[in-house]
């Protein structure tokens, strides 16, 4: 019934746009990063991967992403579970409260932790007031500051993806298990949890890869003391103006994230 060229005509403008504005520039900049100026092919990559300072930054980025993903899973799962079991009107209100921080840009959200953790911030003032410390402590630009900021940034993502899995689970199965004599914990462990693993994979993947490439929060709360791959890219691109090196770091960050997300996901899928 439909003429065969219609779908191609519908797709063509978008395809052309993405090829010219997205794929081509990306390909060209991969080229500039591979083509070393003096050291020959791949010189930038060799230089980076032989540098202990840079390897430490890779390690720190992975460490932050792993810790934040685990915290988000541990905090997000019970919250998502509760929301999926609450009456619809309460659940909708809580979903709105979860979505709201996501509508606010990451500068505002990172800045809010500067207000909390700064020298004159609420934490320092409270600790001094209570006599727990003699003078304001340095909390900004520590790993804890970055981890708190990233957790607050991405916890809503985790809650929402777990919620969308948990809310689709058939409540009858849990009820049946309970009716057959399973304790609430056993029903959860044997029925609900295994069925929610796809949601855990989606949420974990989203949060982990977002943390691996996050820029604003590590830059504002970690500064130069807690450099991550993304803030290194910014440093080389905007401060030292070494675009090929910046591109090499950015692409390494991308590859590393892809590998680190693909391998566990595949393993988990095979087991499930």
């Amino acid at each position, binding site marked *: 019934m439909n003429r065969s060229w219609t779908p191609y005509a*519908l797709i063509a403008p*978008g395809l052309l746009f993405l090829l010219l504005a997205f794929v081509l*520039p990306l390909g060209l900049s991969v080229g500039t990063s591979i083509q070393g100026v003096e050291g020959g092919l791949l010189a930038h990559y060799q230089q980076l991967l032989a540098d202990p300072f840079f390897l430490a930054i890779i390690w720190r980025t992975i460490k932050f992403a792993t810790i934040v993903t685990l915290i988000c899973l541990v*905090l997000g799962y019970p919250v998502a579970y509760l929301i999926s079991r609450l009456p619809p009107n309460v659940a909708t209100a809580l*979903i709105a409260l979860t*979505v709201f921080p996501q509508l*606010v840009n990451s500068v505002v959200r990172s800045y*809010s932790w500067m*207000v909390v953790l700064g020298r004159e911030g609420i934490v320092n003032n409270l600790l001094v007031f209570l006599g727990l410390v003699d003078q304001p402590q340095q909390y900004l630009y520590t790993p804890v500051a970055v981890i708190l900021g990233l957790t607050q940034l991405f916890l809503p993502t985790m809650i929402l993806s777990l919620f969308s899995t948990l809310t689709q689970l058939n409540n009858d199965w849990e009820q049946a298990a309970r009716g057959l004599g399973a304790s609430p914990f056993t029903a959860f462990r044997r029925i609900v949890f295994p069925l929610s693993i796809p949601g855990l994979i989606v949420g974990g993947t989203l949060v982990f890869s977002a943390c691996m490439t996050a820029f604003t929060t590590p830059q504002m709360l970690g500064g130069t003391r807690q450099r991550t791959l993304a803030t290194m890219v910014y440093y080389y691109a905007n401060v030292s103006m070494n675009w090929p090196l910046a591109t090499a770091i950015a692409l390494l960050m991308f590859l590393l994230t892809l590998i680190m997300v693909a391998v566990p996901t595949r393993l988990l899928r095979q087991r499930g």
Partner: protein
Amino acid sequence: MRKYGWLIVLTTLVYIFLLGPIALVVASSFTEGSTIDFPPVGFSLKWYEQALTYPAFRSSFATSLEVALLGTLIALAVGVPAALAIQRYDFKAKATLQSFFLSPVLVPEIVVGLALLQQVMVAMRIQTLWALVLGHAIILIPYAVRVTGASLTLSNPQIEEAARGLGAGPLTTFFRITLPVIAPGIVSASVLSFITSFNNVPLSLFLTGPGTSTLPIQMFIYVEFTFDPTVAAISALILLMTVFFALITERVVGLKTVFVR
């Protein structure tokens, strides 16, 4: 409700963690002092005056709106037809093309921003504003294709076939049948695109030029060098705007339909 006791306590703590710091920003924006203190000193609106009269914030706010609007329009203009092709037709390489349209969301924005800076803005001497619009349109296309596509899968293609069978041409069918049916999807896609663009940092970071940059970037640059509460005031204003935006979205399509897949 009692069986959820400890879950309710934990959930309350999580929401305090999520929303508390943002509330503190609002509270500290009314300070009389010249640093971000908590508890705030006295009460004044001087940081609001400062924020609203600061030229870089005013011009970048206009740029942000312009970029978000144009980026969203381009993303919809190419994304809606693509979603229609993917959901309603069978053709060669359909699955590949579908993943291709969703691929910009997989590439870190820093990578895209850096590539556009070098290969488009500098190499082709394109104006900053247009480089921003281009970059934002790229990262918004996946949202347009995914959200409109989802509303197409939910609608019944037989209504369209019926219209065609009754003699309507393809264009008439699209405008009289398909478009009204997927209108909520298009509204959702626009809302999501607009807010994503308006909040973007990592892409816009590299696409700034003399006198042209977006509001989040100007705020980011401001806090790198200054510690006064002007940014607290502008944050509070953005929050106010966001609350309005969220309420309107909730009324029109429901926040849940836009943000929970």
